[in-house]
């Protein structure tokens, strides 16, 4: 009798734990999707601003055509990319030609003084920082999710309910190159 009651209570509490842990996984999964969408929104905004930048710079005939062509190609590749990881990789490849545009602008005093150009330059740099922050947020959410998927007792619920580990966004080779400092 006593054993039956205790077993019943244990089973009841386990079912309760199952429900709570399952809901916990669902909340985390939705947060991962939200974090990913937040990155996509920022990437889209950055690419819209880059488009405006190209239009502003085009007027300066001597401006490096090579750089502009490269940016246009990357923008097309961005539009064709279907995954956030792919878009992030293209975004990091975009930093070198963009840096070139901003550096060359030093040779054109009227372009440098152009309010629209200044605004776009600030906005594009700000958006890059925001993308980087949101990528950190995404990775942090995935880290917590993966910890839950791998550790006991929540790993039991994850395997029953079919929740699997997620991949984090890793820095691309271009980004790793960007942080190299030469003396």
């Amino acid at each position, binding site marked *: 009798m006593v054993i039956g*009651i205790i077993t019943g209570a244990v089973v009841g509490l386990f079912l309760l734990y199952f429900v709570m842990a399952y809901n*916990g996984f669902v909340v*985390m999964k939705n947060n991962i999707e939200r974090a990913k969408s937040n990155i996509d929104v920022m990437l889209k905004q950055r690419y819209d601003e880059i488009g405006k930048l190209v239009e502003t710079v085009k007027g300066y005939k001597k401006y490096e055509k090579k750089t502009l062509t490269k940016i246009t190609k990357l923008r097309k590749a961005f539009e064709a990319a279907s995954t956030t990881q792919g878009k992030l990789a293209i975004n990091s490849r975009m930093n070198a030609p963009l840096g070139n545009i901003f550096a060359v602008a030093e040779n054109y005093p009227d372009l440098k003084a152009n309010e629209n150009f200044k605004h776009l330059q600030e906005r594009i740099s*700000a958006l890059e920082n925001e993308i980087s922050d*949101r990528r950190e947020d995404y990775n*942090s959410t995935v880290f917590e999710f993966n910890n*839950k998927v791998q550790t006991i007792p929540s790993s039991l619920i994850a395997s029953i309910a079919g929740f699997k580990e997620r991949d984090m966004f890793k820095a691309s080779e271009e980004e790793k190159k960007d942080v190299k400092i030469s003396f």
Partner: protein
Amino acid sequence: MLRFLSKIGPLPALGIQLAVLLISFQLYQEFYSPLILFLGAIASIVMLFVSYRIKNFLEAIPTSKVRSVAMGMAELKGEASGETKLTSPMTKTKCFAYHYLEQKRQRINNSNVWVTTKDDRKDGYFYIKDKTGELLCYTKGANLDLPGKTIHGFNTKRIETIVTQGTKLFVIGHIKENPFVKDATSSEGYKDLMMGDGEIFIISNNSEKSLRKWYGVATVFSGLSAFGLIVLGFLI
């Protein structure tokens, strides 16, 4: 009641759970009915859900930087700043918001109980400032999980909790549109946003790690209490 519980601090959650246990045992001694223990178990299960839900939100939501905060539930870490428009009633401190309580000790059912005789709360706006910017925050509906100052009198006590300039804060709440901004700016998006009341809204000076630990303790305590009360209810 559920709205209040959804924003409860970790120590009050433990306190409520302890009260549920004590009241269940006390009422059982009076009425000798296992039904009381089962009701206590149900209350414990509610507390279990509440604590676990908050703990889970803390785990699921990453701590954002102000400049990249997005609409919806968010966590921020920073310092309270802005113009202090209020003066707290007890310590006369300039603050952004306060919660003041006056309590009196009374004897109810052979137990000494603190009964609240005055509850005064004033909410206000302040900025949560980190290295990347500052975000407006409105304290209405928040659980102020901050150390309160208590002054004891003869069978009375006065407790004051305040949000002051420069307090290091951890905040979890809902990011919505800033009602003071009519035309959204495009360069610093966070200035168009504000943190306010949501499913969970906690303004704390504890770290996220500490909050998670204590909500975890409250969850386990509620779970064990529910288990114990159910088993006792069947055995008696």
